[in-house]
């Protein structure tokens, strides 16, 4: 039975009540309790630092050479919090409501409300750590708006918000390393979970430098291993982002929830050729000031600047007058795909739309002229001043665009197209962030919670830090309080021996195949299947076919992959092979989940289920549940967590 363990009481009192009644562990006992944290992104670093400060003995793992390099570092646009510093009507309730609505009514109310409640503490904590958020001239914190909301609640540090937040958490983590409460294992990859008497008790990690398999014991294990967007091969995720840790847990009993809920981000740099290894995001914050358009005429090949105003179609402003360019991501992505599929796309591939800053440059330029009392000035002065403002706000993003494309976005509109960005699905967790395996927790993007079928911008950073700083410190204690008498278990225990053998057998098998095809080529093929048939639009026919193709690909992988190098030593190809093997299995489950959900909601768009004007058509009567999949070896069993909306009344999302 799936028990989400949502505490009783009114929605806004649940978390306070929970904290008031939660079991505590006294300081002397904390020192005896060991906690394994896999992953050092925002979720993992913040959890490691906080639990270390509380006195637990923490072991933290990451596959990069330093915890500071986790994928969170790449987040650009910002982090939400219900501070209402702008006095524009924001509140905890509104942030809660926007998130539930943005998620197309497929998230759990209690979790989302808790998230909105602690959001304000996050900003305070980060400021105290020295995170240099953007500020106004008066010295106070600055905010911007983001998609799917009508208030300004996004805190940011230029286009490097994730970097600054992660460095804050990383520094807090390193402080604990210095104090001896946290031991850091960089260049280590978790390759197996160890379960003893039904409880998660440790991991097997591969030391990526020496190739050795190591056994690590913990009274509890926290997976903070990020999302699985790289199943698509091309995504905005870092190259190493993977599902392996979560997948190992899944194969040993942790349910995987809503795997088909993936987010395709509307504003990324388009694919330029077969060689492409990853895609680059242009932060959603650019939609604040930039205007999105395509030529009004099909197949118009004129350069953007030669297309007059009246021959442009600002299709988001046209279709969604209330939110305009700031509609949620799923809506914006589909609208771009619709225009390109209909033959209005731009650029050499025709798979792109324009993101135009000309109007914003003029607007900011004029504002500067009046701010500085310059009176009547020449148009190029206005343009120059406007560019300065845009540069201050978005400079690093514009630079990035210029480096990749060789074009100057201050002069010509950027070309953008949707790309895989974030995964709402993940390990199923209850209110305490515990998976269906006792003692195993999932935090951050690795779990499925909070964002339903579509995540709003600037709320992943918020969730990662909420989970790590403010939720797990309470909920983990509630579990460990009953475990204070459990002595550390020796890693000679048979469960450790068996788990290590399983991991080493798998590595040996992979190395012994000695086939003809590279890991990369398999990954590319997997990505293409999933993108074509389980991407921005899906249908039953395609999904059934995709499942067959993925199964065939799996068989081919295990009989024909070629991995160079050795087991005992640094071998990036071997690491990648293990990850791709897991992605292939996940790909099948994603298609299965998408096939089973006969409705459209958020990022899951089933072509058979749409309104006459092409919007997602939900089926609340039959699908208002979390699909939690149990692994049964070669098949899966579906468990449903029915979602009860006590406060918000689900309706068709409208951004018109």
């Amino acid at each position: 039975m799936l028990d989400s363990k949502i505490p009783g009481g009114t929605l806004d009192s649940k978390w306070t009540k929970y904290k008031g009644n939660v079991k505590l562990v006294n300081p002397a006992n904390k020192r005896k309790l060991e906690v394994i944290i896999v992953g050092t992104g925002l979720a993992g670093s913040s959890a490691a630092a906080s639990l270390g400060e509380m006195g637990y003995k923490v072991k933290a793992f990451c596959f990069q050479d330093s915890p500071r390099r986790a994928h969170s570092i790449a987040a650009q646009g910002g982090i939400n919090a219900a501070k209402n510093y702008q006095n524009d009507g924001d509140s905890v309730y509104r942030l809660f409501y926007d998130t539930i609505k943005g998620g197309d009514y497929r998230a759990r109310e209690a979790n989302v409300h808790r998230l909105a409640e602690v959001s304000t503490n996050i900003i305070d904590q980060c400021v105290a750590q020295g995170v240099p958020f953007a500020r106004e001239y008066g010295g106070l914190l600055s905010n911007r708006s983001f998609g799917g909301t009508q208030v300004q609640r996004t805190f940011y540090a230029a286009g490097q918000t994730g970097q600054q937040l992660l460095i804050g958490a990383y520094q807090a983590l390193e402080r604990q390393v210095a104090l001896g409460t946290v031991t850091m294992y960089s260049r280590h990859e978790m390759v197996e979970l160890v379960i003893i008497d039904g409880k998660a008790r440790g991991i097997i990690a591969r030391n990526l430098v020496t190739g050795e398999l190591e056994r690590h014991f913990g009274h509890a294990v926290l997976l903070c291993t990020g999302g699985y967007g790289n199943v698509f091969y091309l995504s905005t995720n870092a190259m190493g982002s993977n599902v392996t840790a979560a997948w190992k847990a899944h194969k040993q009993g942790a349910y995987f929830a809503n795997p088909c809920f993936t987010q395709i981000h509307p504003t990324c740099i388009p694919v330029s050729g077969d060689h492409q290894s990853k895609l680059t995001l242009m932060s959603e914050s650019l939609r604040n000031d930039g205007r999105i358009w395509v030529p009004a005429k099909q197949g118009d090949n004129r350069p953007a600047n030669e297309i007059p105003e009246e021959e442009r179609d600002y299709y988001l402003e046209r279709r969604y007058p209330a939110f305009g360019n700031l509609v949620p991501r799923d809506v914006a992505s589909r609208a771009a795909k619709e225009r390109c599929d209909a033959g209005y796309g731009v650029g050499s591939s025709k798979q792109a739309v324009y993101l135009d800053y000309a109007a914003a440059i003029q607007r900011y330029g004029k504002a500067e002229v009046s701010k500085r009392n310059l009176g009547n000035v020449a148009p190029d002065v206005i343009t120059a001043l406007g560019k300065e403002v845009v540069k201050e706000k978005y400079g690093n993003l514009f630079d990035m665009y210029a480096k990749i494309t060789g074009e100057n976005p201050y002069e010509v509109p950027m070309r953008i197209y949707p790309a895989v960005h974030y995964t709402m699905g993940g390990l199923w967790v209850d209110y305490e962030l515990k998976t269906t395996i006792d003692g195993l927790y999932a935090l951050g993007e690795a779990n499925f919670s909070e964002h339903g079928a579509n995540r709003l911008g600037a709320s992943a950073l918020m969730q990662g830090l909420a989970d790590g700083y403010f939720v797990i410190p309470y909920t983990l204690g509630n579990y460990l309080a009953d475990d204070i008498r459990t002595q550390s278990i020796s890693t000679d225990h048979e469960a450790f021996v068996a788990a290590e053998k399983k991991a080493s057998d798998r590595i040996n098998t992979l190395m012994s195949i000695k086939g003809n095809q590279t890991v990369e080529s398999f990954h590319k093929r997997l990505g293409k299947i999933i993108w074509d048939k389980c991407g921005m639009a899906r249908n039953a026919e395609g999904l059934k076919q995709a499942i067959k193709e993925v199964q065939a690909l799996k068989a081919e992988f295990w009989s024909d992959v070629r991995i160079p190098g050795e087991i005992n030593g640094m071998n990036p190809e071997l690491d990648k092979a293990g990850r791709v093997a897991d992605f292939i299995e996940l790909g099948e489950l994603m298609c299965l989940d998408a096939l089973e959900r006969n409705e459209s909601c958020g990022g899951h768009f089933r072509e058979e289920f749409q309104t006459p004007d092409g919007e997602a058509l939900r089926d609340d009567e039959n699908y208002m549940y979390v699909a939690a999949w149990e692994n049964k070896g070669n098949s899966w069993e579906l468990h449903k967590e029915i979602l009860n909306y006590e406060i918000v009344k689900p309706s068709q999302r409208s951004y018109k």
Partner: protein
Amino acid sequence: MQHYSMNLKLKVWRQKNSHDQGHFENYDVKDISSEMSFLEMIDVLNERLIKEGHDSIAFDHDCREGICGMCSMVINGQPHGPWKGTTTCQLHMRAFKDGDVITIEPFRANAYPVIKDLMVSRSAFDRIIQAGGYVSVNTGNAVDGNAIPIEKDKADDAFAAAACIGCGACVAACKNASAMLFVSAKVSHLALLPQGEPERKQRVVSMIAQMDKEGFGSCTNTYACEAECPKEISVMNIARLNREYLQSSLSGS
């Protein structure tokens, strides 16, 4: 933008592990598109090497968008290659032309042992941060984010210093393998903010002590670091660090 295709000669540093001596290996690569990133060019070569039964070239990378600090490589003598303010992963092949010879080596410094091929260990940087590169504030101890206003200029300067990605190119660029730019960026970031004030004196002393212990060389103000830094961290930070250090030593703490 006109795209073109090119053939290149690569001289790549190959080294099995930290004990191996290492040597250069020559490779011809063909039909490289000017639209590719530098690392995608190496991906293409690696795919070929694997197919031919050789080991692939090991190199560090992750975000491939210039922010994680994982990629390294010295390209034609320059850490992160020829483009100013650019990481290796952001370098694109339109920086090169048909027939070019490109030499690719790991970042070299005593404090950066080679792990394999182009991959080095930069864990010394983490230990320098452990020595004091933080504000000692436990979770839950914070006052309201707007309780202490910070002048915009100061906040902007702190941000500019905090933009350091910890890549270590400054060390690789320096003939003394000094880590001063990296350390000064962190010292500046925190010294500029009121939150960093209470530990200001201790921080700079401890971080410098750790830097010396790790075997980085001393700074002789040649500024090669600033020229090669992909985030264009200013050497003004080194001046600030020196002031901070002097004041801390004078006040005897």
